[in-house]
C-alpha cells in the first residue's frame, strides 16, 4: 500500500450516513446526541442520531477512559479468589469530540500512562479507542481555549481532525490510527483541494477571533509560584465546595478507592473524588492540611496551572468552560485568573 502524502479528504454531508454505516462495521461509535438536557455522548448506530452542530457536551469525555464508578476487583468468599475486573472493550470511536476534550484526554494519558505502573483499566479502554475531533466554528461565550494553549482545532489527542465547511467535512489524519480509519472509508471521501484548506483556515481564524485571549498564561504560571499570595482568601469566599467544577472538568482526575462488602462477596471500586471537599485531605490523626475553602481553592488553581506544568509539562486546563457554566455561585475561572494577575 503506497502511502500518499495528502492534504486531507472531503466528505460531503449527504454521504455522512454511509460514512457512519461503514465505520460501525468496525467500531463502536460514541458521538454527541441531542437529549432533553443538551447534548451528551451516546451510542451511535446511524448518522441521524448524531448532533454535530453542537457547542459541547454537558459532561466531558473523561468518563470513557476513567469512568465515574469503576470496579477494580472483586471477590466471592465461597471460592476464595479475588478477580481483577477487566473492562470488556471493543474497538471504539469517539466521533465529533471537540479539540479541547481531546487535548484533555492527552493530558489524562500523561497522568495514567506515563509512569510505571501504567493504569491497566485506563490503558485498556484508551488503547481500544480512536478519536475523531470536530473543530469548532463558533465557540461559546464561556470558551477560552486560546488563552490556555489550546485552540479551535488543537491537534493533540486526536487521530483525525474534522472541520465543518459549508456542506461538507474536511478531514485530515493526524496519526497512523487516523490514517487507518481514512483508508477504511476511502470509498465515501474525495481528496481535498487547496481551496478547502483556505476555507477551513478562514473558519479557524474566525473562531479564534471570537475568543479574546485574556491572559498570558506563562506569566500566570509564574505568578502562581508565590504560594503564599494574599489573594486566595478573598477569591475562595463564595465557593461552596460543591465539587461541580471538578466533576465536569475534562482534566480533573482525583479518585477515591473504597471497598464494598455485600454478604459473602465484595469489591474494590474506584470513584471520582474532588479536592474541593473538606474530607479530601483529612488525615487519620484528625489534622487537615487544607482546612478551609481558601486552601482548597488555592490547591485547585495551583494544581491546574502550576504543578501540572512542572510535572507534566502542560497546564491542566483546556478552556472548555464547563466549570463556568455549571458553578452555582458563578465562580468564573477567567475572573479568578484576571484578579490574581492584577494583584501585586
Amino acid at each position, binding site marked *: 500500500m503506497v502511502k500518499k502524502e495528502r492534504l486531507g479528504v472531503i466528505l460531503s454531508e449527504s454521504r455522512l450516513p454511509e460514512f457512519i454505516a461503514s465505520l460501525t462495521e468496525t467500531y463502536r461509535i460514541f458521538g454527541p446526541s441531542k437529549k432533553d*438536557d443538551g447534548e451528551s455522548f451516546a451510542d451511535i448506530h446511524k448518522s441521524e442520531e448524531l448532533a454535530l452542530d453542537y*457547542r459541547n457536551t*454537558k*459532561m466531558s469525555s473523561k468518563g470513557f477512559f476513567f469512568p*465515574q*464508578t469503576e470496579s477494580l476487583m472483586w471477590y466471592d468468599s465461597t471460592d476464595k479468589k479475588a478477580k481483577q475486573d477487566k473492562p470488556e472493550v471493543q474497538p471504539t470511536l469517539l466521533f465529533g469530540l471537540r479539540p479541547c476534550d481531546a487535548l484533555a484526554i492527552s493530558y489524562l494519558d500523561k497522568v495514567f500512562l506515563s509512569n510505571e505502573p501504567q493504569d491497566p483499566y485506563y490503558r485498556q479502554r484508551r488503547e481500544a479507542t480512536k478519536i475523531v475531533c470536530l473543530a469548532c466554528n*463558533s465557540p*461559546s*461565550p*464561556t470558551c477560552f481555549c486560546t488563552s490556555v494553549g489550546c485552540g479551535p482545532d488543537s491537534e493533540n489527542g486526536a487521530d483525525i481532525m474534522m472541520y465543518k465547511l459549508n456542506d461538507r467535512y474536511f478531514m485530515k489524519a493526524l496519526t497512523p490510527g487516523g490514517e487507518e480509519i481514512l483508508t477504511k472509508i476511502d470509498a465515501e471521501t474525495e481528496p481535498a483541494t487547496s481551496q478547502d484548506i483556505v476555507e477551513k483556515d478562514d473558519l479557524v481564524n474566525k473562531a479564534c477571533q471570537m475568543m479574546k485571549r485574556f491572559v498570558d498564561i506563562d506569566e500566570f504560571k509564574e505568578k502562581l509560584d508565590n504560594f503564599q499570595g494574599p489573594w486566595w482568601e*478573598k477569591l475562595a*469566599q*463564595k465557593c*461552596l*465546595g*460543591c*465539587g*461541580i467544577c471538578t*466533576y*465536569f472538568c475534562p482534566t480533573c482526575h482525583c479518585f*477515591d478507592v*473504597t471497598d*464494598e462488602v455485600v454478604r459473602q462477596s465484595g469489591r474494590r*471500586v474506584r*470513584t*471520582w*473524588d*474532588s479536592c474541593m*471537599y*473538606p*474530607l479530601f485531605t483529612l488525615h487519620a490523626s484528625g489534622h487537615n492540611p487544607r482546612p*478551609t475553602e481558601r486552601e482548597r481553592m488555592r490547591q485547585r488553581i495551583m494544581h491546574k496551572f502550576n504543578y501540572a506544568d512542572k510535572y507534566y509539562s502542560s497546564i491542566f486546563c483546556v478552556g472548555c468552560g464547563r466549570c*463556568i457554566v*455549571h458553578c*452555582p*455561585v*458563578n*465562580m*468564573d475561572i*477567567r*475572573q479568578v485568573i484576571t484578579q490574581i494577575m492584577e494583584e501585586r
Partner: protein
Amino acid sequence: MKQAEHEIRSNVGKLLKQKNIDVFIGYEKGSLPLRTSPCFVSSEKEARKLIWNSFCTNNLAVYLPRIMSRVKNKGSTRVGIICKGCDSRSLVELIKEKQLARGQIYIIGISCSGMVDYKKILSQVNSDEVIGVDETADEITVRSKEGERVFSKEENLCEPCRACKHAVPTVYDMLIRTAQQPRQATTPDPTVHDFLMKPREERWQILEQELSKCIRCYACRNACPNCYCKECFAEQTKPRWFGVTTDLTDIIFYHTIRIFHQAGRCVDCGACIRACPMNINLRLFTRMLVDEVKERFGYEPGVSAKEVQPLATFKTEDRQDFMIEPE
C-alpha cells in the same frame, strides 16, 4: 429594582463606614448575562458593586454557619446579609439550631416578587448568543446578536417562588420594600398532591428516572443552608453507611436520607434545585416533607423564632395512625 439597588448600596455603605458590621454578604453582577454571584464586601467603596434584580437567587444564609464557626472573636464580629423571604426563614432556623446568634447578624430584608430561573430562560434561547438582559416589573428582555426576545417573569419563575407565602422576610433589622408587590401564593402547591395521584410503581420509576441523572457532586448539600455538618453522613467512614458510587441504589440512599434530614427544617428556598447541574427535579421529593410537617404538626419553618422544631419536641397526643395494630 433600581431604587432597591440604590438603597442597598447606600445602606450597606453606611453600615460598613460606621463599622456596624465587618463584612456584608450580597449579590454582584455575574460574569455572564442572566447570572449573579454572591459577594462579600467590607468597605463603602466595595458596597457600590452590590446589585439587586430578579436573578439574585442564591440563598446567602449558606455562608453564615461556616463564617460564624471560624470567627475568633465571636462576641464582637458582626456580619451583614441581604435576605429575601426564603433566605430569612433559613436564617431563623439556623438561629434556632444555634449556628449563629441573632446579635451577630445585621439583616437587610428585601421583599421579593419572585425570582426568575435563569436556566429556564437559557433553555429557550440560543444561550451562546446572549449579550445582555433587561427587566421590567413583569418581563425579562434578552438581547442577543439576533435581536431581542421578551419573556414573562411569571412563566419563568423559580418553582418554589410560585408557592411562596413569605415573600416579606420574617426577620430583619431593616426592610427594603421594592416597587413590585411581594408575592403571595393563593393556591396550594400541587406538586405533592399530583405526584401522589400516580400509582406506587410509577412513583418509584419516576424517582429512579430523575435520580439516575445524579453524579454525586453534592452540590445540593453544599448549597443548602441547613447542611452544615462538618462530617456528612454520606462521607462518614466509621461506619461507611453506603457506597460512594453512582450505582442507582447508592444515589437513592443519599438523596432519601439527605432530604429526610431536612424534615421540619426545609424552607423550600430552592437552592438545592438550582445548584444541581443535572437539573434533577429534587423539589418533587423535598416538597413532600414541607407539606407533611405543615399538615401533621402545623409547623412552618422559619416563621417564628420561638416555635420549637417539630422533631425536637413531641405531644403526648401525637397521631399514631401510621402504626400497626395486629388484630
